[in-house]
């Protein structure tokens, strides 16, 4: 592994999972699977001393270093990182908000294509995650299963023959598996049917939550669907519950709602998404919330063929790259909120006015 604290290069490119490729990528942004694992011979994080945490971090790092295929993997010590750099990794979905805000020894290992990351000393000693673009859970499960096997070869996990993999929170025990699919559902929001989706999810043990919003405010019409249960089912069955059963149904609802919007008033819809693109590509200052709001419309416009010449991958990237820490990393300096609004507008203008192709954005 490469020990690293400088990842400015990341700000100029984006992870594989944002490409806007993979099955159903007009609606499904990404498929993510994470596994929670703990070492057998340490208390869980909340009851760890500072020395315990240091010792866990060292133990796991040494084991990871011994994995041959991981020579290119970046290893980042989060304790030494500035707040803005930690925020950057949160925006990028490579670490959780919880580990960013925590204290003490903690780290993350990231593969060069950003398809997997391993957090050390989050709520559990190890949180392994794999992210793929589009609805691609089966291959994501295959990848994470292999990763888990590699780590397991070197680490003695806390495992109980009846309870399965032991975790700090009993809601994760058993498989330690959380399958999360991020969906873009603007038409269900516009047609006010999103509540139906919420309700049908509760009956089948699946959780839905809005994304990117602060507090209770959902922005950008992104929703994350995850399994609620982790014990008593095989991993493949939990993956199938979300990927083969629940998500395709939501996709169907969203497609119907999009068809309805097109039939009901294509001109209005075309006008609405074109105005959104107009604002994003000409505004001189723009807030993060407003950006999300209009990017969501533009993304739908692109997917419905109402907006041409803007690749969906570019829109996906703009959702991430216009967030506060990304803008500041790109500028290489700290910016206040109003400076960020100006910077964001410039950045959007640059990427949406046709001067840059998708390739150049990478």
């Amino acid at each position: 592994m490469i020990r690293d604290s400088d990842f400015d290069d990341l700000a100029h490119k984006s992870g594989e999972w944002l490409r806007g490729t993979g099955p159903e990528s007009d609606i499904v942004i990404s498929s993510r699977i994470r596994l929670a694992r703990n070492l057998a011979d340490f208390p869980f994080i909340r009851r760890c001393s500072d020395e315990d945490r240091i010792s866990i971090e060292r133990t796991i790092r040494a084991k990871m270093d011994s994995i041959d295929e991981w020579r290119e993997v970046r290893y980042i010590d989060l304790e030494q990182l500035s707040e803005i750099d930690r925020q950057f990794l949160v925006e990028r979905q490579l670490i959780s908000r919880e580990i960013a805000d925590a204290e003490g020894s903690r780290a993350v290992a990231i593969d060069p294509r950003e398809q997997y990351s391993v957090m050390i000393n989050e709520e559990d000693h190890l949180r392994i995650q794999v992210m793929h673009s589009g609805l691609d859970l089966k291959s994501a499960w295959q990848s994470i299963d292999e990763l888990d096997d590699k780590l397991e070869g070197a680490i003695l996990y806390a495992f109980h023959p009846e309870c399965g993999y032991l975790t700090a929170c009993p809601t994760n025990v058993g498989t330690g598996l959380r399958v999360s699919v991020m969906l873009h559902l603007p038409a269900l929001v516009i047609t006010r049917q999103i509540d139906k989706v919420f309700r049908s999810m509760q009956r089948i043990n699946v959780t839905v939550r809005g994304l990117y919003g602060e507090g209770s405010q959902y922005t950008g019409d992104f929703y994350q669907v995850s399994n609620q249960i982790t014990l008593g089912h095989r991993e493949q069955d939990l993956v199938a519950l979300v990927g083969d059963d629940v998500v395709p149904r939501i996709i169907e609802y969203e497609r119907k709602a999009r068809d309805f919007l097109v039939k009901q008033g294509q001109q209005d819809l075309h006008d609405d998404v074109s105005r959104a693109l107009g604002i994003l590509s000409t505004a001189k200052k723009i807030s993060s919330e407003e950006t999300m709001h209009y990017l969501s419309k533009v993304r739908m416009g692109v997917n419905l063929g109402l907006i041409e010449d803007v690749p969906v991958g570019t829109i996906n990237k703009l959702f991430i790259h216009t967030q506060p820490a990304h803008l500041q990393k790109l500028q290489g300096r700290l910016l206040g909120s109003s400076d960020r609004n100006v910077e964001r507008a410039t950045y959007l203008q640059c990427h949406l006015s046709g001067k840059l192709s998708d390739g150049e954005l990478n």
Partner: protein
Amino acid sequence: MKCQYCEKPATFHITELTEPDGPQVMHLCEEHARGFLQKEATTPTASIAGALAKQLNLGQTKQELAELDQKECPVCGISFFEFRNTGRLGCPFDYTHFSEDLIPLLTNIHDSVVHIGKRPRRAAAADSHAELIQLRREMEEAVEREDYERASEIRDALHRIEEAGSTEQNASGEEE
């Protein structure tokens, strides 16, 4: 129609099917509907709290509850009261020590208490977690006071436990 909680127009009409007195129709504005639906979409901590509340209503007397709250894990020292408040356990051995108390909780959350998924090739026996944690602590203390002979004895003991666990896992794997 107005929202039943404020003056705004009700744009969400939600039929709650899980109410004990039969379906209940709610008329809500967007803001209150989101609040309501979000509360319903349970977070892990909320579902732990919910599951615990359910469990604690099931015929336990105050005295029984007070006794349970004081029960402590001999390895990590966490009390059931602390677990109940934070929703987080203190160490792997808690699943053995609080086993009986966790069963109703796991049933409420997962509708199951038995793992049927992936198993590691190597795992320590369930009841050896306490010993593993304690021995590793002792080993670190031994290293600190430069008693390397004792540290290496403990290291051997740890390896023996790990190997015993592996054999046990493999044996049970073969039976399946």
